[in-house]
């Protein structure tokens, strides 16, 4: 204790110099301490206001153990070289351990570290969690007698252990043997953290593959790859073809955020191609969007190209040609159809909606980019040139432009445009509700 006090005093004394043994140990993180010299050691609470309160806030009064809170906060200060990565985090955690043989305030330190993990990007790293559990002093919190076992021995510490495991659970990290060993060493076998650990071990392995639409654990950072992943997720049909119509060009070094070319990635199956070829050019098709698709914690916005359902009068019945199959009759000459028992056509869960011809993910949500997409689609769907395309974008501009990319057809008259606007708003509400 006196060693720690001496360190703190010395640090307070030689703030400006930055040449203390403590500072040399922590090195860079302390260099910014000098800016806060006048504040003193006891007013550290003010810095925590911006932290998110996932875990209980650290106690404020400047009593013994919490006097060490300021150095803890300082341990996590951004280094001058600014790299917030695993090495710095690990160093900060280890520094705490070196400060203080008795590890005062370790509970608060661990809560703080749990909060800081996201900034440093180590929330999915098992080794870091093990290191954090290592901060607990061992063998102290194990119950030694039956009375200690009955009542929750050292409840704050057990809660803290459970908080660490809970954060592991939230980020989908599977604990391993080292975690088990640490927990046994720290809390003993019959403690609540150990119970949680055993439950995690059982259920995590069972639930690992429970997602029927699994996503890879590390999502690609490149927007084009992310777009491809999202499109494949939405259209799992293996015959669908993904086409990249435009890749993002390299930005200028002058920093002008003139993203003139953002990425456009589209997907279409051969069935959709055939349906588009059959589409009646008198009826317009609509580009709608953007709709959001969440992939883990990333959101991808996509647009679809769809048409409305044909009213029943205009639907043409499929004609089965008379002499189609050489071997067996495709159509029997009976007067009656399916009986009520075997009639599976009506499904209350399936609402008939118009055909969707293609889906695309684009970097920008304005009409120019989407027009570029339509142009790209025209290469594989030559019939698209004849069909009027109406853009119904629920974008931030709220623009509703009714243009045709075919340029042969005149644009639809404005009153129709107003109806479409109302429709658009209704659709927006439906789409976003």
């Amino acid at each position, binding site marked *: 204790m006196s060693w720690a006090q001496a360190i703190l005093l010395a640090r307070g004394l030689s703030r400006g110099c930055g040449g203390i043994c403590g500072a040399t140990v922590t090195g860079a993180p302390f260099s910014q301490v000098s800016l806060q010299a006048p504040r003193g050691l006891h007013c550290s609470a003010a810095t925590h206001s911006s932290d998110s309160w996932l875990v209980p806030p650290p106690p404020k009064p400047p009593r013994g153990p919490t006097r060490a809170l300021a150095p803890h906060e300082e341990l996590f200060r951004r280094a001058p070289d600014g790299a917030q990565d695993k090495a710095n985090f690990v160093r900060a955690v280890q520094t705490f351990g070196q400060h203080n043989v008795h590890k005062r305030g370790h509970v608060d330190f661990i809560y703080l570290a749990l909060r800081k993990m996201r900034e440093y990007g180590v929330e999915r790293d098992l080794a870091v969690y093990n290191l954090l559990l290592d901060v607990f002093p061992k063998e102290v919190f194990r119950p030694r007698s039956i009375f200690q076992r009955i009542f929750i021995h050292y409840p704050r510490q057990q809660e803290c252990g459970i908080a660490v495991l809970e954060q592991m659970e939230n980020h989908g990290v599977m604990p391993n043997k080292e975690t088990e060993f640490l927990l046994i060493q720290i809390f003993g076998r019959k403690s609540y953290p150990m119970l949680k650990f055993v439950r995690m071990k059982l259920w995590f*392995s*069972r*639930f*690992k*593959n*429970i997602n029927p639409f*699994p996503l890879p654990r590390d999502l690609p950072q490149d927007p084009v790859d992310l777009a491809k992943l999202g499109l494949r997720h939405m259209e799992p049909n*293996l*015959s669908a073809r993904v086409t990249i119509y435009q890749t993002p060009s390299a930005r200028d070094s002058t920093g002008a955020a003139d993203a003139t070319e953002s990425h456009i990635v589209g997907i279409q199956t051969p069935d959709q191609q055939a349906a588009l070829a059959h589409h009646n050019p008198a009826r317009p098709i609509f580009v709608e969007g953007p709709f959001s698709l969440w992939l883990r914690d990333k959101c991808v916005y996509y647009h679809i190209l769809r048409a409305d359902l044909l009213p029943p009068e205009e639907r043409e019945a499929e004609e089965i040609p008379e002499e*189609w*199959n050489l071997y067996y009759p*495709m159509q029997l000459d009976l007067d009656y159809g399916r009986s009520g028992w075997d009639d599976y056509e009506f499904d209350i869960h399936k609402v008939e909606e118009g055909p969707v011809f293609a889906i695309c993910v684009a970097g920008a949500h304005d009409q120019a980019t989407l027009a570029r997409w339509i142009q790209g689609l025209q290469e594989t769907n030559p019939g698209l040139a004849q069909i009027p395309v109406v853009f119904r974008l629920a974008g931030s501009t709220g623009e509703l432009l009714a243009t045709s990319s075919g340029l042969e057809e005149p644009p639809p008259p404005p009153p129709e445009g107003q109806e479409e606007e109302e429709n658009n708003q209704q659709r927006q509400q439906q789409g976003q509700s």
Partner: protein
Amino acid sequence: MQVPEEYGGLGLSNTLYARMGEIVGLDGSIAVTLAAHQAIGLKGIILAGSKEQKAKYLPRLASGEHIAAFCLTEPSSGSDVASIKTRATLSEDKKYYILNGSKVWITNGGLANIFTVFAKTQVVDSESSVKDKITAFIVERDFGGVTNGKPEDKLGIRGSNTCEVHFENTRVPVENVLGEVGGGFKVAMNILNSGRFSMGSVVAGMLKKLIEMTAEYACTRKQFNKNLSEFGLIQEKFALMAQKAYVMESMAYLTAGMLDRPGFPDCSIEAAMVKVFSSECAWQCVSEALQILGGSGYMRDYPYERMLRDTRILLIFEGTNEILRMYIALTGLQHAGRILTARINELKRGNVSTVIETISQKLRDSVGRTVNMGLTGKLGAVHPSVADSASKLEENVYYFGRTVETLLLRFGKTIVEEQMILKRVANILINLYGMTAVLSRASRSIRVGLPNHDHEVLLANIYCAEAYYQNLFTLSQLDKYSPENLDEQIKKVSEQVLEKRAYICAHPLERTS
């Protein structure tokens, strides 16, 4: 691959060997060449060889410098091992054996340097009677007198080298006797029994690849404005392939797991069941896959016809399926018979209490009872999703047990000659083993949480239902006076046909006037 590590091999366990087999099995010729080299060629040295023999031969064999071959079949003895004519006589100075004879259809015969040859030697019994017994020898090509004929022109697995091997006065040192003199039969049996189970995983690997290729075709080809994959018959074929692959895999890995247990468990029946099932299903499934492709499946440009020809050999080599069925049934019946001997004796003597017990059991059976052997229910071994199939399995097992008792009572020792009955017994056994393997694998995958476990449950339930009804039919065929039992008629027909060695019916167009 299974050569122990101290001799330079990988020392793989049976399960890992089965897994390797899955990958190797994509091409038939490669799989057969490898299997002939290590699964039967050098297995003899591993299983029955002395330390000096192992140290002398295994390192070079494991590295691939020398290739091994297994020489047992002769022109006049395929399945009938005891009638081989190759003789090995001891020379005067008792240091060499002189080997004379010829072997036929030896895989790797042209490439191999080291042969495991089985020959008849004269053995003096303990009662000092001279008998001819089979002995196993390790013969190197350098011993002289080993010649091989030209590679045979086969239907399938044309990539592997199969030829005749002739031994003319080959001098084999006495140290090269594998096992003991006269113990060749056991050595051969052990060798063949130990490599069989991997056929299940080899075939499963091939089937998986086949399903991929065929599904690619079926989902892209359109006829009558529909994809092939939308027609019911095609879907049935895919379901069949998936189901059989699943059962095969489960059976193979279950057997491999059992063999990997400490001690030397005797899993020869299980291995034989795996071999029979996988070879027959391979033939069926490849044929169906070729059918899905239609005309293009028949063309030599596609691999399907090659795979079909390669799989045809699976039913023949490593013990023909008919022989193995006899083996499965007879070994099982022997085991059952030993247990039931006591009871049968008592019945024959007319012990009143046993008779009453038997009759009451028969009465209860005829009324119909539910069998509970502890597989289903709260403390059951299987997951509730497959509980129905498990109860079907239990029922089958119970009724099979009763039927076996009846059979033994009726035939006793002479059941060896009743091949049609034994074939039915073997079929039931294979189905039961398949059901067990599939149920245990499905329960495990649900409990552990493997991906697509609901698909596995579906496959398991389908297979168990099919096997259950097949078993019931076969069991009814085993009754003596049941209308499904056509054994007598079949025997009569074959007698008449074989007497004249021709088809004896009158031609439909014949007239009497």
